[in-house]
């Protein structure tokens, strides 16, 4: 015999592995052992086969490859001795890699062993079959297992029953063969057989409606009797767990009863008594007792139980909530979450206890309880619940504050009936946990304040007060800055004081102090600082005495190393110095933000969108503009979007985009709705604004302008060149002039969502003015790759469209690559009508098909 192949004893190998100090040493030992085992295998060494497989199982557990031992397992299984068979089957279950050929080879041995005279060998074979059975094996061996269900030995019987579960899971068609043996198992007295039989019946119900019907008809009574027997039986130490007789049998019976009673009133009624008995009599001072109660509650919730029984069940859960054991509280919260759908009134009664669980020391319980509280909130209890939660917010753990804040905010938003309450609560949340508040929440607050003229004074004063104590809360600071910029004079002049307010005096220079602190504070990020600059500009026109000081502050930032701030400072400085005549109209108060449109937008924009806005804010290169309502939009769209915003009855006139623009800029142009003088005036002003400060202009590439504009595109004249052209496009004459003069067309963002961005660039041959070659570039903004990407486009009748094949149909995540596709559009009414297009993108992400579509109206003029 080869001295190497004999190797070491299993015990020695384990010892050697345990003695290893490093992973490298361990690998070396394992490699040596594996080499020895392999050579033993190739020499067909029979004496040590058994030990080698045992070693391999240990090596497998450590995560090393052991596939070479599979055939050895088969040889062991085929040998006659019991120890060999045992290790062989054990190895088979652990080392097998589901390769069909190995399974096919083992089927025959299994068949023989299932028919073996030794019941332990039959047991081994059943166990292996129950663990590794494939559909083919199930069909081949089902008759053997079926026969074994009828043997007398309880050990074989229970294993055969559980093995049948695996078989019917693999081949549901076999279920009917097992139905009558399974039903007869329910009459068994042996505990193990009974449990296994009940499990088999439960699984039969799952795979076959017929089985469910059959069992409901024939076995409900038997099940109830089992439950009665086991719950009334005197102390049976054998199956006792923590003083409760056989909790597992209880649980399995209850579970099967749930399957049978579901949706069947008669059966459910039949079960009422026994369920009530278990729910009221089971001792609840031990885990096992609680396990039964828990299962019983779930069954009561699952079947068509009477309302009295349901209340009883929910009260059990209520009792669980005050249990000292964390586990019990945890499962109770889980179950209450399900119970809300069944009987929310009964759950409401335990609200106070649930609220206590929000303050639990166990984080997972807190999280559950918070979710549950969130489900329990309704119009009547919203106020007290919010108060409780906000009070708790003050003392809660740092890592829980994020969750808690998000939930509180959505409760406040959902259930606020009066504006003042909403503003008050949001203020509290912002001052306690402003750093955890999501952007859309404070955006919504600003929209709300803007829509409440009689509360604006109150809001800005409360914000000012809150700022004094909570200046480190980012979101609060932003809202303060915005409101002071807009309503600063209400703060100083004490406009619209409510009865509840305490009188306060704030001077003009106090407000400037606040803004200066925000602008220069270390904790302020670039968005806050940009917003502060705008607010300062606004104040400089509202409070003339402070304008000198503001000018100085702004001048300091002309040298800011942050491009965004520098640019703003330079622009604002020019406005103050050179354009005093238009300054006051330029920094007019914002038009009222359209609340309903914002809400619709917010509802439409999913979580993903919020993420997109966030990323747009943090990365300078991000292209999304922050609109007043805080929703990220493609650079070309904001003005159009603003029009959308105000398209429903708002004070802003909306007949054409130029009107709107004029309005935004606060420029008093007469006769602006009719064409003629107005557009040229608009152009002049825009040009004028854009040309402020010649050195800056060279800096302003469309990208830097459009990136991260903070919060006020309206107060800051930042339309990119594209947008200017786009605006003027309203007038066809203007557009065609632009088209004739420059054959170069600016690229546009044709479509942008939180997940996808489509850019179009254009080319035209001078000799064929009708034909436009459109070069489309698709970019994936999400973190998941898209496959099977297909782009489709539709055009009006006067346009002919030809699509070339796309460069690929796979779009990598996070913008790491693009798909390009060329489109050729022939506009038969060139010069009269501009291009228009509807597009649709279909793709698969995470195996789910997704569709996005949009309409492109922002083609450059003259195409």
């Amino acid at each position, binding site marked *: 015999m080869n001295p190497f192949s004999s190797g070491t*004893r*299993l*015990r020695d190998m*384990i010892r050697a592995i345990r003695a290893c100090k490093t992973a490298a040493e361990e690998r070396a030992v394992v490699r040596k052992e594996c080499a020895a085992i392999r050579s033993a295998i190739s020499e067909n060494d029979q004496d040590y086969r*058994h*030990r080698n497989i*045992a070693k391999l*199982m*240990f090596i*497998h*557990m*450590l*995560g090393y490859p*052991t596939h070479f031992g599979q055939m050895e397992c088969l040889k062991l299984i085929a040998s006659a*001795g*019991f*120890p060999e068979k*045992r*290790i062989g089957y*054990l190895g088979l279950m652990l080392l*097998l*890699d589901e390769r069909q050929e190995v399974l096919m080879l083992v089927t025959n041995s299994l068949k023989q062993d299932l028919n073996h005279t030794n019941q*332990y060998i039959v047991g081994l074979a059943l*166990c292996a079959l*129950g*663990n*590794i*059975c494939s559909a083919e094996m199930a069909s081949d061996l089902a008759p053997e297992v079926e026969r074994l269900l009828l043997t007398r030995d309880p050990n074989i019987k*229970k*294993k055969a029953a*559980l*093995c049948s579960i695996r078989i019917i899971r693999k081949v549901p068609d076999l279920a009917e063969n097992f139905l009558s043996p399974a039903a007869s198992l329910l009459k068994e007295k042996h*505990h*193990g057989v009974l*449990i*296994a039989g009940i*499990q088999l019946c439960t699984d039969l119900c799952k795979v076959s409606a017929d089985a469910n019907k059959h069992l409901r008809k024939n076995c409900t009574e038997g099940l109830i009797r089992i439950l009665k027997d086991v719950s009334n039986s005197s102390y049976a130490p*054998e*199956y006792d*767990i*923590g003083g409760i007789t*056989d*909790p*597992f049998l209880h*649980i*399995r019976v209850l*579970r099967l009863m749930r399957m049978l009673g579901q949706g069947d009133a008669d059966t459910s009624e039949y079960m009422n008594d026994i369920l009530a008995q278990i729910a009221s009599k089971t001792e609840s001072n031990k*885990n*096992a007792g609680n*396990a039964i109660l*828990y*299962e019983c509650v779930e069954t009561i919730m699952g079947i068509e139980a009477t309302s009295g029984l349901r209340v009883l069940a929910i009260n059990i859960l209520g009792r669980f909530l005050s249990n000292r054991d*964390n*586990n*019990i*509280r945890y*499962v109770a919260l889980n179950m209450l979450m399900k119970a809300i759908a069944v009987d929310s009134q009964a759950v409401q009664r335990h609200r106070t206890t649930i609220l206590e669980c929000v303050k639990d*020391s*166990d984080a*997972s319980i807190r999280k559950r309880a918070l979710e549950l509280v969130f489900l329990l909130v309704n119009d009547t209890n919203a106020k007290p619940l919010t108060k409780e939660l906000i009070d708790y917010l003050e003392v809660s753990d740092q890592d829980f504050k994020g969750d808690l804040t998000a939930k509180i905010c959505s409760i406040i938003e959902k259930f606020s009936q009066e504006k003042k309450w909403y503003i008050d609560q949001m203020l509290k949340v912002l001052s306690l946990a402003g750093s955890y508040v999501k952007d859309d929440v404070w955006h919504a607050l600003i929209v709300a304040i803007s829509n409440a003229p009689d509360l604006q004074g109150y809001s800005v004063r409360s914000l000012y007060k809150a700022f004094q104590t909570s200046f480190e809360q980012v979101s609060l600071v932003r809202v303060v800055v915005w409101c002071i910029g807009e309503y600063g004079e209400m703060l100083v002049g004490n406009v619209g004081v409510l009865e509840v307010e305490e009188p306060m005096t704030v001077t003009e220079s106090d407000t400037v102090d606040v803004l200066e602190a925000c602008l220069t504070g270390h904790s302020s990020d670039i968005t806050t600082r940009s917003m502060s600059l705008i607010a300062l500009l606004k104040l400089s026109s509202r409070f003339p005495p402070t304008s000198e000081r503001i000018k100085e502050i702004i001048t300091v930032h002309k040298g800011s190393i942050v491009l965004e701030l520098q640019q703003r400072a330079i622009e604002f400085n020019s406005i103050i110095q050179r354009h005093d005549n238009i300054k006051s109209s330029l920094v007019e108060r914002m038009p009222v933000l359209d609340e309903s449109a914002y809400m619709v937008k917010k509802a439409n924009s999913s979580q993903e969108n919020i993420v997109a806005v966030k990323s747009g804010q943090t990365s300078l290169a991000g292209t999304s503009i922050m609109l007043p309502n805080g929703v990220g939009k493609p650079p070309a769209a904001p003005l159009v979007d603003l029009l959308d915003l105000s398209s429903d009855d708002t004070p802003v006139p909306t007949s054409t985009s130029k009107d709107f623009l004029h309005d935004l800029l606060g420029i008093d142009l007469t006769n602006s709705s009719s064409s003629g003088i107005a557009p040229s005036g608009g152009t002049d002003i825009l040009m004028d604004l854009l040309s402020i400060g010649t050195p800056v202009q060279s800096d302003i590439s469309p990208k830097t302008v459009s990136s991260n504009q903070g919060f006020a595109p309206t107060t800051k004249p930042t339309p990119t060149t594209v947008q200017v052209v786009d605006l003027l496009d309203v007038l066809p004459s203007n557009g065609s002039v632009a088209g004739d003069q420059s054959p170069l067309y600016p690229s546009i963002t044709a479509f942008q969502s939180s997940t996808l961005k489509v850019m179009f660039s254009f080319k035209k041959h001078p000799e064929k003015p009708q034909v436009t070659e459109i070069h489309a570039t698709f970019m994936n903004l999400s973190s998941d790759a898209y496959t099977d990407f297909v782009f489709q486009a539709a055009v009006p009748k006067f346009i002919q469209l030809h699509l070339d094949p796309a460069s690929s149909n796979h779009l990598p995540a996070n913008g790491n690559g693009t798909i390009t596709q060329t489109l050729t559009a022939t506009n038969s009414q060139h010069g009269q009508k501009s291009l228009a297009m509807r597009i649709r993108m279909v793709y698969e992400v995470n195996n789910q098909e997704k569709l996005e579509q949009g309409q492109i109206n922002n083609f450059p003029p003259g195409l």
Partner: protein
Amino acid sequence: MIRAVIVMNTQGKPRLLKFYEFQPPEKQQELTRSVFAVLSGRPDNVSNFVEADAIFGPGTRLVYKHLATLYFVFVFDSCENELAMLDLIQVLVETLDRCFKNVCELDIVFNFNKMHTILDEIIFGGQVLETSSERVLKAVEEISRLEKSSSSVSFVPKSVSGRFGR
């Protein structure tokens, strides 16, 4: 059904891995590591239940018990009762205790295939087979006796389990 039983020590070394749904070995190691990462981060005073959706797929939960230097972990789906699973861990531990007389980590390391025998008598293909540790013990002893008697003929020095069992 029960998806997996994992016993590992407090350093994350697996001591027993049993998956009732096929997982390739690398995946088994990865899952074990993720479970360890979750468990090692949990303080003592919290519940024994963890949502395992992120590790084992939707709807799965795990129950664990931390005893001496070992974690006993049962992974299961929505068809099982969490509290009952906790009791089942108790059954397993009690059986081990009776089998090894005050079980410790070393017993499990050196007798891992006996562990498997015991486990196979408690859980069968992901279903609960037997909950009486007495009966489990009886079945396991019967198997050991059978092994010894048949191995005494030809396999005395090589029988693995013959050498174990203290």
